[in-house]
């Protein structure tokens, strides 16, 4: 029979697990390199653009139109995205229903599909009724810009909202239901106030996605100056004209807009942009 003493190891040297340094240094080098490259890219943009080309870009009527349309379309597509993403996120977070997994998969399509294909698919969709009834006012017009931005931004916003609702325990709704709420009231009075940050995160994500949207807009809304030209379209048009400095100046405007979004989201207490 084994005695308790057999388990006591006395003659082995003290075990040393080894230093943590190589692991920590490895983590720091890999993470640091990526962060440095991100910052270096932006510094390179700034270094390349001189004040003259920045000013001439800002003075150009086309660019002013493009900035205006970008701000307007991104804001509208963000509102539309939240309008759909909040109920969609809540539905998929709280309810089990037949076809839920299928719906989940369908919602991933705009995220995984190549952006250009979304544009082509929208173009195809507007050949069929009832969409075709409106296509003369939509396709290659401003509404096409907003729809193209919405189709991608909404998928990201819906994911963000789903995660945000998942993080709010159902206990609050349960208590609210016993106190006399119906499901709708429990949602408005108890869940929505707690989802404020999630809504802000989803909105910021949708806005940033919309701002950078290019492929679907190019295909579905075209790249007509002073009509469907948004900032990424301007970069593309400047590049086609061989105006590298103009292209970088516009990119810088987009970097500033993105930075403004990041700073605003941090100021409003969000820890990170994407969930």
């Amino acid at each position, binding site marked *: 029979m084994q005695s308790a003493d057999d388990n006591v190891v006395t003659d082995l040297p003290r075990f040393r697990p080894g230093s943590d340094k190589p692991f920590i240094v490895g983590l720091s080098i890999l993470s640091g390199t990526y962060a440095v490259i991100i910052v270096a890219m932006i510094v390179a943009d700034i270094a390349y653009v001189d004040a003259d080309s920045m000013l001439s870009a800002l003075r150009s009527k086309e660019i002013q139109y493009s900035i205006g349309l970008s701000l307007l379309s991104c804001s509208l597509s963000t509102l539309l995205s939240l309008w759909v993403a909040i109920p969609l996120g809540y539905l998929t977070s709280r309810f089990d229903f037949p076809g839920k997994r299928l719906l989940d998969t369908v919602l991933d399509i705009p995220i995984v599909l190549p952006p250009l294909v979304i544009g082509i698919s929208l173009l195809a969709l507007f050949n069929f009724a009832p969409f075709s009834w409106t296509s003369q006012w939509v396709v290659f017009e401003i509404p096409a810009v907003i729809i193209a931005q919405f189709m991608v931004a909404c998928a990201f916003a819906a994911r963000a909202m789903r995660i945000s609702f998942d993080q709010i*325990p159902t*206990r*609050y709704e*349960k*208590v*609210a*239901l*016993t*106190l*006399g*709420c*119906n499901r709708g*009231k429990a949602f408005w*009075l*108890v869940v929505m*106030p*707690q989802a404020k940050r999630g809504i802000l995160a989803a909105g910021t994500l949708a806005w940033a996605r919309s701002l950078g949207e290019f492929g679907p807009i190019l295909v579905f809304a075209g790249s007509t100056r002073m009509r469907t030209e948004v900032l990424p379209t301007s970069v593309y048009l400047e590049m086609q004209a061989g105006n590298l400095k103009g292209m970088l100046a516009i990119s810088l405007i987009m970097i500033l807009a993105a930075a403004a979004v990041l700073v605003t989201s941090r100021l409003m207490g969000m820890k990170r942009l994407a969930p």
Partner: protein
Amino acid sequence: MISVEKLQVRQGEFSLSDISLKLPEGEYGVIVGRSGCGKTTLLEAVCGLRPIDGGRICLGSEDVTTLKPGERGVGYVPQDGALFPHLSVARQLAFALVLRKAEPKHIQERVEELAERLGVSHLLDRMPDSLSGGERQRVALGRALSIRPRYLCLDEPLSALDEETHDEIYDLLVQTVKGTGVTVLHITHNKREVENLADVVFRMADNELSCER
């Protein structure tokens, strides 16, 4: 009386079947059993928070099986109180009365009365994140009592508290609930709570519920 007859609940791989329980009016019933045996499911079914696949639930003489939770007149306190994080203590206590569109004067009187009874009068303007564990449970109990329920369902209301606070809330339960005519179903793992609070003990094990007095 809380009466559950042949309750059946299926949810994924978990199921309860043929669970029956009778708790006479005004008595304090404690449900004990291992984690995961279905105590919370049973309690939530009584509150109307869990869809059931079969059986009948009666509160008093009324069959409430198909009634919504808010129509059953059951006060519910979950494990950590689940105070609404965006509402002050006063608004937590007033929540159900505001929903019922009660007169502002009546709401204020009721909130003050509850706050005094539960010893939270000095906390009325505070937000939940600035309250201690014991204070939260007091407010949660007050919020559940605000609708003057005839039935109270408590899901391990004392389990997250340290020993001293546990005793304090335990005394409060004895004072405010026991002997007031409210019929209580209380889930716990604590032997002392079973010994001192329970008029009836329901033991849940292997999908069966036994009753001891």
